[in-house]
Structure formats: C-alpha cells, structure tokens
C-alpha cells in the first residue's frame, strides 16, 4: 500500500474563556477550539458545542452540497470500521491533501474530521479483543485490527483528530476485576504505541477514550496512568513526551459502553433513546468525574451518545463537558421528529402533556399535523416570516435559499433569476405527507433542522454561562427540567409510528422493485 508518512501541520488549540477558568474543576465553561490546518485559516468551534455523527462516512440523509450549506456541519466524527470491508480500507487509497476529507466530501476549510475505529454508538456484542487487536464490526463480519494497522490507517487518511484503540469490552458484563485491569493495561499500551513520534511530521491530534468501565477505581487508575512519568521502553517509544497525557489533546467519554457496563446487559439496539431507562445521568456523573479528576482541566472534554438535552445540561453543569455528539438529534430526524426547544426556555413552546411538560419536538407522523401549515418549530420561525423577537431558524427547512446557480444544459437556457433568496418555510403538513409517503427528503429536511435547533440550544447555553452567575444558570437549568419532558415520550410515540409506516411499506418492497429493474 503506498503510504505517505508526511503530514502537513494540523494543530488544535483550545482556549477556555477567562471568566470560566477561575471556577472549580467541574464547573460549566465556555471556550473556543481552533484548528489550523496547513497554515491556512482557522476553523473555530465554540464550546459547549456539537459534533455531527456519520454512518459509513456520511452524515445520514444529507447530500454533499448540503454539508457546505449547513452551518451545523463543522465537526464530523467518522467511525472507520465499515471501511474494513475492503482491504486495504478504501479511504487509505485516496491521494492528495486531506485524503479523508476529500474521500468523504467534507470541505477542508470548513470541517474538522475526527476518526475512531469503532462507532461509539454501537453497543452490539462483538468477540473479545485480544492483546494485540480490537474486534470491529462490519457488514461482512468481525474484523481484527492491530495497533499497527490502526496507526497506518490514520497516517494514510490524515484526519484532524484520531482516537487511538482502546480495549472496551462489548460482551456480557459485569466485568471482573481482572478484565478491568487487562482493559486498562491494553488501552495504555495501545496509546503508548500510537503516540510514537511520526518521522519528519507533525504529531496527531489525539483524543483518548477514558477507560475503566463502571469502576471508579479503574477509571481513576487509567487517568492517573496517563500522567505518570514514563520510564524504560515506554519512555523511549514516545520520546520526547514525558507522559502520555502530554501527547493528548482531548478526553473522550463514551456513554454507550458505560451504560452497558452499568446495566449488565447486551444492547442489540444502537439507539440511545431506548437504552435501559433505569440508568440515570446521576449514576454516570461520579464515574465521569473519577476519570477527569486527576487530569488537567484545560483539555477538551467530549461526551458521546448523550441521551437528551437534559443529560447534556447536567453534564455541562456538573462536569464541565465541552462537546457532545448530535446522535440524539440525528436519531430524532430518522424517526420523524422536528425538534422544538430552546435554552433558556422561551415563550413559544410545544403542546403540554398531561404531566404538565412540553415535548422537545413534534412527532410529524402524527395525523394532527396533516393540515398544520406552520413551520417546523414554535421556538423558531423562518427568515421569510421574521416576526418580532421570535428567534429565526436558518436551516434549509425553515429558511430555504433559492439556488445561486443553475446548471445550464444548452446555450438557450436562462440563468437563475433569483439566487440566494429566502423562500417560505417547509410546513409540518408537507413533512407529514413526505413521511407517510416514504419520501427520503423528509429526513434530509429534519436533519438540517434538528442540527440547527441543537446548535441554537448550545448557543443559548454558552450565552447563559457567559452572562449569568452560577446560581442563575442553575436556575435556568431547573426551569428547563420543569418545562420539557425528560422521559422523551414523544420519541417513543414517534418511533412506534415510524415502525408501523416502515412495516406497511414492507421489507420486500425494495427487493421487488429491484427485481423489476433487472427484468426491464
């Protein structure tokens, strides 16, 4: 495999705003993450903020040109395991600058791309990892990946950020003390291996998965090991780093394996909304704290698979988390939900349930939306219908822009007369129709909107941390808990209707249509 080891510089810095530094280890904080690639301009991402997830390398339901237009797509995370279906993995064959960006179509001047071997949301059982490999899932079965291979894939793909291999068990818990110790040791060894200097090139930006499962002691031990001054072989390997932590830019906290370890069950569903509801955010907080406690406070803290904005708020409030993935909001788009909430709680809510709480969004499968010509949210309106102080959603569903260019197919074709004009918002009634007729654009529009709502939520959080005192911020958080339904009842309702419509459509339909195709 032809592989260039030279990497252009790609440096990631993280600045916590002065005002939030003085507070305690775990207080909420605002910051800016700044990526400079190849000496070009910065990509700045404000924190607390959001990371967009990918499936088989793509942001589900979006076209590549939508990546460019959608301001929420600033940092995408790519689980690499699906590419193991081909050997060598195809993205490693891409030539030129920023090969992973290029292969997947993420604009390099706009997007940060991070890469891990496993999908952080995949809680399905896989065979045990070995001393020198991690088991990964592909549609062609399980693949073993060694630390050497993983490093070579990262070198070839040149993502902006890499997560080194980590030994996270995905087989039945509870895990024995022995298993936990082995897990920590392997993760340590693999991280050491990964942090070896790259000859003649800039080092990786590394986010480390904080290991230790559901054990406070194990988690603390792993974090402490990162700070230890290295000796002997380990020290030689990572020279000039004195400890592993010196080579680490950010800390990653994956909640799916953590919830699995806590609940002692195998989860065959990867969706975070259906994980064991018995496990509360309050069960998770002490574990995450035990990981972060020994570590320096100035590095980025990233949480994957948070199950609701309520949980996100709690983790910001009690642990000072900087980044969350958008899996929750993306899943909502899959099942037909248009998100509609804001922080702090605004004056324009959704319907109230009998428990007195508002839904976080609208289940657009519901027949009550068939003749509802309002835009997708009450909290936000479209630019074309700007009205007083109601916040505006600039997403492609609420504020669609007419195209700036039109492809001309002959010398006679007229050019676009009105590029860049904001059109009327797409309505709930139209999306209801699209969902019931299995039109895929329903999900594209919902992804655009839901990511924008989540973005606005984080902008509200940042604003509140910056401008409110701790007490007022806490008060706003309790108001959010009071107002919005944490049980996510609208999700279960939507998921049920989505299931019915999918069923009615029939699993065989695609196959039948396909057969029809080939006989023509």
């Amino acid at each position, binding site marked *: 495999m032809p592989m260039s080891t030279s990497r252009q510089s790609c440096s990631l810095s993280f600045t916590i705003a002065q005002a939030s530094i003085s507070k305690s280890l775990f207080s909420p904080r605002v910051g800016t993450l700044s990526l400079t690639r190849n000496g070009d301009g910065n990509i700045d991402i404000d924190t607390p903020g959001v990371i967009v997830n990918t499936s088989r390398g793509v942001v589900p339901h979006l076209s590549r040109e939508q990546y460019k237009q959608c301001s929420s797509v600033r940092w995408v995370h790519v689980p690499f395991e699906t590419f193991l279906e081909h050997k060598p993995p195809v993205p490693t064959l891409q030539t030129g600058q920023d090969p992973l960006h290029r292969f997947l179509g993420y604009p390099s001047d706009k997007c940060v791309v991070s890469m891990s071997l496993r999908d952080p949301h995949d809680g399905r059982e896989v065979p045990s990892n070995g001393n020198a490999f991690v088991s990964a899932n592909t549609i062609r079965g399980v693949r073993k990946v060694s630390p050497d291979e993983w490093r070579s894939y990262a070198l070839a793909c040149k993502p902006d950020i890499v997560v080194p291999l980590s030994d996270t068990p995905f087989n039945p818990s509870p895990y024995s003390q022995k298993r936990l110790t082995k897990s920590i040791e392997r993760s340590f060894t693999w991280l050491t291996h990964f942090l070896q200097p790259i000859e003649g090139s800039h080092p990786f930006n590394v986010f480390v998965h904080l290991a230790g499962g559901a054990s406070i002691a194990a988690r603390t031990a792993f974090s402490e090991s990162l700070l230890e001054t290295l000796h002997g072989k380990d020290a030689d390997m990572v020279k000039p780093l004195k400890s592993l932590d010196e080579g680490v830019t950010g800390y990653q906290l994956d909640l799916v394996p953590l919830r699995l370890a806590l609940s002692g069950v195998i989860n065959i569903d990867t969706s975070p909304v259906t994980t064991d509801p018995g496990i509360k955010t309050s069960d998770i907080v002490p574990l995450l704290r035990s990981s972060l406690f020994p570590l320096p406070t100035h590095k980025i803290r990233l949480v994957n698979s948070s199950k609701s904005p309520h949980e996100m708020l709690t983790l910001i409030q009690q642990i000072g988390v900087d980044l969350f993935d958008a899996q929750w909001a993306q899943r909502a788009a899959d099942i037909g939900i248009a998100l509609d909430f804001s922080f702090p709680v605004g004056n324009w809510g959704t319907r109230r349930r009998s428990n007195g709480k508002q839904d976080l969004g609208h289940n657009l499968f519901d027949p009550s939306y068939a003749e509802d010509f309002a835009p997708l949210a009450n909290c936000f309106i479209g630019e074309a219908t700007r009205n007083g102080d109601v916040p505006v959603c600039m997403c492609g569903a609420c504020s669609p822009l007419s195209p700036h260019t039109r492809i001309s197919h002959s010398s006679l074709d007229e050019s676009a007369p009105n590029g860049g004009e904001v059109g009327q918002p797409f309505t709930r009634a139209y999306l209801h*129709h699209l969902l019931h007729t299995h039109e895929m654009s329903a999900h594209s529009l919902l992804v655009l909107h839901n990511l924008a709502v989540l973005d606005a939520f984080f902008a509200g959080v940042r604003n509140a941390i910056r401008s409110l005192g701790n007490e007022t911020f806490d008060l706003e958080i309790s108001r959010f808990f009071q107002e919005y339904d944490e049980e996510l009842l609208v999700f279960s309702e939507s998921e049920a209707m989505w299931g019915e419509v999918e069923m009615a459509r029939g699993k065989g339909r695609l196959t039948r249509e396909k057969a029809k195709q080939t006989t023509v």
Partner: protein
Amino acid sequence: MQFEVIAKCHTTRARVSRMNLTHGVTMLPTFMPVATQAAIKGLTPQQVEALGVTLILNNTYHLNLRPGMKVLNQAGGAHKFQGWHRNLLTDSGGFQLVSLSKFTTITEEGALFLSPFTGEPTMLTPEESISIQHSIGADIIMQLDDVVSSLTTGPRVAEAMERSVRWLDRCIKYHEGSGKKSTQNLFAIVQGGLDPHLRHQCLDAMIQRKNDISGYAIGGLSGGEEKDVFWRIIKLCADKLPEDRPRYSMGIGFAEGRNFLLHLLVCVALGVDMADCVFPTRTARFGVALTHAGPLNLKLSKHEADMNPIDKSCPCPTCTDGTSRAYLHHIVTHETAAAHAVTIHNITFQAQVMGGARDAILSGTFPEYLRSFFAGYFGDGGYPEWCVNALRSVGVDLLQDHPVNLIPGSGAKWEYAN
C-alpha cells in the same frame, strides 16, 4: 402559455422551442423528472432547481389520495405545498386509476372505482379530474382519457378513442368555465391504439379543437407493443399535430427502463417535445448511474477502489465535487445519501442529453449528435433495429460511419457498461 418554435432540424422532424408558462420558461425538447408524491426522490426543490430542471411532473392519482385535495386547497396548491417554484405538469389520474385499481369500470360518465379509503364506489369524471388538477394548480394539466392497454384489439379501441374525444369536450367546457385558463394549460391526449386509421380519426377530431387546447399528448403507448409499431404511431401523430403546439409523449419512461434514453432521442427526432421519466430517479436507489457509455452499476465490486467520479465531464454536484465511485460503492443501498448523489447525477445526465439535443438542433448538427450518442452508448455492441429504422424514416442513418449488428425485437439487452 406562450409557445414559440425557435429552430428546426434540417434533416429530422426535431425542433427547439420555448414554452413560457406561469412559473417560467421551459426550453424544449425536455424530459420531466417525476415527483409522484410531490417530491423528487430525496432531493429538496432547491436542489432540483439547481440542476437546471424547469418542469416536473406530479401524479394526480397519488396526490388525490395523499395529502388529498382538502390539504392541497388549504396549502394553496401543489407548488406552494412542495415549495417548487418552477413549472409543474399533472396527469389526469386516469391512467394510474386503471393500472393500480383492479375494479375500475369505464362508463360514459367517467371511471368508476372503489375508493382505496372507504371502499365505496367512486366516480372520476372528466370534470372531476380537471377540478382536482385545478386544486393542484399545475401549469399543464391533462384531459381525462379512456385508457386501454396498447395490446387491446377490437371495437374497444375505437370506443375508447371516440370517448376520449367526447371527454375532451367535457374537459374543455369545464376548464373554460373555471377561470383557470390564464394560469393552467389543458392538453389533449391522442388515442387510437395501434391502429393508424383510428389515430388519424382522433387527430382530426382533436386538431379541430385546437383553439381550446394548449398542447397535445400522445397516449396509449405503454410499452407492451412492438417497437416498430411504437415509433410508427409516434411518427404518425407527430407528423400530423399542429406546428404551434407542444407535443408530449406520455409515459414512455414508465415502461422502458434503461432503454428510455433511446426512446427519448428517437421521439425527439420524430418531432416530440416533452417526455416524462421516472427512470433516472428510480434506478438511482439501486446504485445505477447513467453515462454516455451506458448504465453503470455502482454496486459491482469492480468499483470498490475506483477513485474516479461517475463521469469526469459531468457538471452535476456529485461529479464536480469529485465523489468517487469507490465512495458511492461503499454507501449504495446502505445510506439514503447514495440515492441522493446518484439521483442528482442521473437527472443532470438526462437534462444534459436533452440540452445537447437542443444545441445540436440549433446548430444543424442533430444527425451527428444522434450518431455519436448511439456510438458512445452501445460501442460495438450492436444497435436496436427499431431505432435504426425509426431514424432512417427521418433521414438519419445510424450505421453511416459505424457498421454494427442490428438487434431485433424490443431492443438491446446489454450488460452494464462498466
């Protein structure tokens, strides 16, 4: 509607024209992507417009079922409902009624069928069809016609043709009285099966009504007929239809699958201006990309490490972004984004083929255009005999500089080009 023929091919019957409707100009000849349920598979209306598409088709039968006329009326029509600001065409709903519903009975009054919602007998009359199409608000609407399969023989064919003329009169009358004439344009549908005599009769009757009609569709050719009969009927109709009205060949994309492109180009050469086409969007979902060298099946493992785009010279967003075949291979049938990417390409490809035809007609090189298209599409694999015959009838010899075998029957069966 303003309709103006801008240029005519010196050899064939092909022509370039400009059709100005309520929602802008559409240059002809053109193909129309089909948005059956008020959406082009996976794409937003803005994305479709960016591809240079100016005219799409909605299906009346489907929209009448869902979202239904009540919703469309409240929304202010299908343009507003789906956010499409360019031209729109609807069919009468009759064809789908007959093909999708088992219990349709045709009476002089209309088509009687069982409502899929209530199971009640329901009548679709010519007046009702036009009234539904008024609610949808399409720029071009179709008369309700009495549809029989092209394989039907005997007196039923003549009866259907004669009834279609009577129903046209009822559609005209209803449309006249509606006040929608200035924004919506009614097309007649020429019937008469495969019988030239009946076709002539129908044409005579419908041409008499020209002043009340904005354009003509050629109906009743649904794919089951012999190809040599198919093109002769198209030619017979196109030859006789008035110069100053657009001509629309209905539903040829419905049955013809990947041979659609050939039908399209042959029809253009015979004098047709418009055709609808579900093929580029339907086939995209299965990872089939259209190219000048024939269809490309991106599912095949030969593409798994191919870093080339579908077509380097294609102006679509998928190809200009450098989206590789390897990438598409990785996501095809797994991610909806693959269908979006290939749909974007396929629609653009079709529009390019038609745009290229317009330019060639304008510059007097349409016969060469046809020859080079066929040569690229089939290579040395042989041409469908019916295409060669059809184009000979309008003075183009496909075999002129490219002697290949002729493939008889319904057309080429070829392997994927790549």
